[in-house]
């Protein structure tokens, strides 16, 4: 994919390209394309790379200057994201804070919270993880049970979170907790910012199906945080949390798109290498997945075009995640079929090659950020306006 962003940002684009060329060298260059949104692979290198980016002033391109950002616009943000993905720079270790938590705080945080936290995200001094899910609250996030009670100038927190991506590395968590013990569902929830460096917080790593230490479960036993570290109003945590989901959908389009395009190219090459032995049915399945990636590209361009024109994105933005995640899983199955028996052999110690890892990790894409079934519920009810199913 080659995009022309127009003359207004030509200099900016050139600056980004040059900087990436000059700094994506050595160890960083060796880790091109490594990592993903929920991925711990090559963590230390990626963290060092984030610090390199911070030093170059490339984190928070569109964040306000008073909080350490560059104060540029959405267009520059997209241009940089695009150049970044094009250069195949490693996936940012601090992606959660940069793409989800930070923008949420910019939109909804208090002035003091913004001044306290945002600059340290941009200098990679403090790492953040998202504590929404619980063992009993996944898709049904409104049934969160972890609770917080006021105590003097603090909140006292008890309960458990799970599937916390890179929770084991985080200095801070943004957690959704119940602050009104008598409340039900999404009423009475609040969003708290909680430091992990305290005796009341215990983080245990969970190994994922690819063998990686990627996410964690977090136990709160009389853990504490300051009373003013609630984002938005007390009891309005549901709205705050929903805000991050909106952001989650938009920000990952371009890098994901370029990654998928590269994978599709690899798939086509692998199929081509089979020569005449490639079964006709597989040929057509390869074409179909290649087409799906092209269609995804146009779908993303439509959304970006609308965002840049200052319009609310149309229905295509709502189907993008479902289409991309289900297609990616299909493509993984196809790639492994084309690889044949040789593709089933791993390195020693369950070391996986890129195709094996990509396939296994893709299985999470139809789960996190709203499982495919939940996506279909949302599309049906919120986009198509179908009647809601009876709910408690």
């Amino acid at each position, binding site marked *: 994919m080659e995009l022309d962003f127009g003359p207004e940002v030509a200099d900016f684009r050139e600056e980004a390209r040059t900087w990436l060329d000059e700094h994506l060298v050595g160890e960083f260059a060796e880790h091109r394309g490594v990592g993903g949104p929920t991925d711990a692979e090559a963590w230390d290198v990626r963290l060092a790379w984030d610090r390199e980016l911070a030093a170059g002033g490339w984190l928070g391109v569109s964040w306000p200057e008073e909080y350490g950002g560059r104060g540029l616009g959405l267009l520059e943000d997209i241009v940089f994201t695009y150049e970044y993905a094009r250069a195949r720079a490693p996936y940012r270790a601090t992606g959660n804070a940069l793409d989800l938590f930070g923008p949420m705080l910019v939109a909804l945080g208090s002035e003091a919270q913004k001044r306290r936290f945002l600059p340290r995200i941009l200098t990679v001094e403090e790492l953040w993880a998202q504590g929404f899910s619980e063992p009993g609250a996944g898709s049904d996030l409104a049934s969160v049970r972890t609770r917080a009670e006021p105590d003097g100038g603090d909140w006292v927190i008890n309960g458990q979170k799970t599937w916390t991506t890179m929770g084991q590395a985080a200095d801070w968590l943004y957690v959704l907790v119940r602050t009104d013990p008598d409340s039900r569902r999404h009423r009475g929830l609040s969003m708290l910012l909680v430091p992990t460096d305290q005796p009341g917080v215990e983080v245990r790593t969970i190994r994922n199906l690819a063998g990686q230490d990627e996410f964690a479960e977090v136990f709160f036993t009389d853990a504490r945080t300051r009373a003013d570290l609630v984002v938005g109003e007390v009891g309005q945590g549901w709205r705050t949390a929903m805000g991050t989901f909106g952001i989650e959908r938009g920000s990952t389009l371009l890098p994901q798109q370029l990654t998928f395009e590269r994978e599709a190219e690899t798939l086509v090459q692998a199929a081509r290498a089979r020569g005449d032995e490639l079964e006709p049915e597989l040929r057509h399945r390869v074409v179909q997945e290649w087409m799906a990636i092209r269609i*995804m590209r146009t779908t993303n361009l439509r959304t970006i075009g609308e965002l840049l024109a200052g319009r609310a994105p149309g*229905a295509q933005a709502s189907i993008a995640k479902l289409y991309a995640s289900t297609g990616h899983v299909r493509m993984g199955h196809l790639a492994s079929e084309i690889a044949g028996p040789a593709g089933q052999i791993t390195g020693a110690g369950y070391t996986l090659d890129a195709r094996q890892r990509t396939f296994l990790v893709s299985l999470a894409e139809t789960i996190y950020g709203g499982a495919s079934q939940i996506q279909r519920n949302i599309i049906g009810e919120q986009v198509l306006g179908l009647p809601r199913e009876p709910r408690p």
Partner: protein
Amino acid sequence: MAHHTLTGTFGEEQEELRQVVRSFLSRHSTEADVRGLMATTAGYDPALWRRMGSELGLQGLAIPEQYGGSGFGCIELGIVFEEMGRTLLCAPYLATVALAAEALLRSGDGAACEDLLPGIAAGETVATLALTEEGGRWDERGVTARAERAGGGWVVTGTKTYVPDGHTADLVLVAARTRAGVGLFAVEAGARGLDRTPLPTLDQTRKQARLDFRAVPARLVGVEGAAWPVIERTLATAAVLLAAEQLGGAARALELAVEYAGIRVQYGRPIGSFQAIKHLCADMLTEVESARSAVYEGLWALADDAAGRSADVAVAAALAQAYCSDAYTRVAGDCVQIHGGIGFTWEHSAHLYVKRAKSSEVLLGTASYHRERLAVRLGL
């Protein structure tokens, strides 16, 4: 990819065009109109056709001003096709505009354009392209009809079939072979030696005919033997426009399904509140919006190409046809399913969409045919 793709999809003028066409069709291509016309042999309303040409200028939309058109491009045509697909308009628009006018324009034959395009643009001429023969092939090898020099001109001999609106066209552009290769020949409806037989069609909303040529006097359009690239390029444009029509039909079938799912009550609840139905509708929307992306990519490629920017029109067209054929068929089928028994009746409109989807699926080549073309392009 060009800059215009990032500055929004359609401009204000284009949205206005959409509104004008939509409101025109909502008055003149109602379900009753469609049912009335599909029962006739001609399959269209000549008076409405003339109004489309003279009042709205739809036939001449993408014909240059020098030939009586208004000189817009494929993006505008795409909008019109999408709207026509929504209402299943019964008219020889695809045959006339996407196939015949496009082939004339592409031929580079200025004299033929001057003589033949103004009538099309004005809504006076119905035209078509006669390409396929008994085997139903859309490639160069499918052309076996022959043309020979006779007197000062040419005569065409052979049989063309599955020709869209071939029985009502005033002007037929025929692909026929000479010793130099495939050429394009213009034949008038009343020409001596031309026999036209309307074919009974499964999809009654788009008519087809068989044309038998016995030494029919014809006019060579363009250069002798050099027509295949012209035809291929015409088919690529038509593929994108047909895809736009398919998109419109699929979008409308989805609307019908969603509307019904919201009001039909079973087990004490609207059926749309059951996930089996809701998720099916969500999948239909996913298909429709993805089909829209496939169409837009095709339209952008055509627009880029027309503006002299590099674009792989053949790939974009094959992708649009392959995707939209499958998507329309699937969505129209699901629309019947969601309607249950009533969807299986002649009286309900759901079957009209299924049938249009099926006939569009094979028109200009099936999804498999286009995927095969892509496979070859990808070196598979």
